[in-house]
């Protein structure tokens, strides 16, 4: 015995959402079912007669009405890549990516750190006369400091610790820079200077380093003449041939 087909099922058939694949054939076979289906179809077709007044469809007009109602634009928006990274959906992936970057950075540090100087390549860092002038200025500064150091007394007072610290930092930079170059004398002098600066910065007894400081002072004066000769009359102070 065939089941009765409800109006609901015929509505679903009209919209093609019926579940029984044999239903269209059955409706076509049975006149009563066909009549009911036609009735429903005619009713639903009436909906197509419904006329809705059109709008302007003007997108610019929509925006013109909308824009004043929007909250003020934030002064600075995040970079798109940061937005992408910070999307909640991607937060896990973003975190993993950041972790990977850190791990890679540590690996790089461990792999190359100890074998590489922590300063730029000398031939990159020491290009041009300006850079030579920096070294010459450092030698001048160091010579002045050593002079003060050698002539310290109760009357002159102690050396400025900040000056010592700054000179120590500068000297470390220059020493590392020339370490890999063919300038053994300069390198050795800067090395010895750093030793004195370091001990002074750490408040070591001055007397023990006095002879050494005299030697370094002497070396510095020689180097200073080499890298920063005194200008002749009527001539600008110029820099000697590139040191590196």
């Amino acid at each position, binding site marked *: 015995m065939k089941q009765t087909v409800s109006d609901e099922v015929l509505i679903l058939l009209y919209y093609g959402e019926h579940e029984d694949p044999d239903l269209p054939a059955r409706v076509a076979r049975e006149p009563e079912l066909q009549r009911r289906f036609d009735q429903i179809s005619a009713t639903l077709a009436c909906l197509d*007669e419904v006329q*809705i007044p*059109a709008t302007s469809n003007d997108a610019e007009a929509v925006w013109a009405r*909308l824009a004043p109602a929007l909250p003020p634009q934030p002064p600075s928006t995040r970079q798109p890549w940061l937005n992408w990274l910070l999307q909640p959906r991607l937060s896990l992936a973003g975190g993993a990516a950041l972790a990977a970057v850190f791990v890679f950075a540590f690996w790089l540090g461990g792999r190359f750190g100890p074998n590489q100087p922590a300063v730029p390549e000398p031939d990159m860092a020491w290009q041009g006369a300006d850079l030579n002038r920096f070294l010459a200025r450092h030698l001048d500064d160091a010579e002045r400091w050593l002079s003060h150091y050698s002539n310290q007394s109760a009357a002159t007072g102690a050396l400025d610790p900040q000056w010592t610290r700054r000179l120590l930092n500068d000297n470390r930079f220059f020493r590392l820079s020339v370490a890999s170059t063919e300038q053994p004398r300069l390198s050795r002098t800067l090395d010895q200077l750093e030793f004195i600066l370091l001990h002074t910065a750490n408040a070591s007894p001055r007397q023990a380093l006095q002879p050494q400081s005299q030697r370094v002072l002497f070396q510095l004066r020689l180097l200073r003449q080499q890298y920063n000769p005194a200008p002749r009359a009527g001539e600008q102070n110029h820099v000697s041939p590139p040191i590196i």
Partner: protein
Amino acid sequence: MNKTPDHILQRAAAGDHQAFRQLVLDHSHHVQRLALRLTMDPSSADDVVQETFLKVYRKLGSYRRESSFHTWLHRITVNTAMDYLRRKQREEPALPPEAIDSQQQPQGELCVLEQAEIRERATRLLRQLSPLERSALSLRHFEGYSIREIGSLLQLGDSACKQAIFRAVKKLRHALEPWS
């Protein structure tokens, strides 16, 4: 529908008005059409469009891309329209369905005037449906969404969605009975 590029969505989500303008220009036509279908009134549709895009602006940061932007936007439009219709219904209660039956009954052959009468009754009936019934029937009949998609848009199960459509069609048949 134009596909809005991801970078526009991202910039709009970050509050960039220019990017949001682009998004509005790309999608306003479809939002307007849907709002008009659901409200059946241009003025109400304008309100719904405005409200929809304001919601989109506020919620864009929480758009998860689990569905297409088009679907997400339509969901907001439908929900906004339904909320709007419910508010309006509370403020201006619709005539009961019986009111349609009390109208003049057709007599004689179907003619142009009767066609106009059918159109008017169908239009009036659609306006008198509950927001849920109207939305479900309009999305199925005019927008061509499947029942499952309508269920997703209206956040209803398939069965509840079908029942809303069945109720709407039953009322429509009742209103048009004299011509059936």
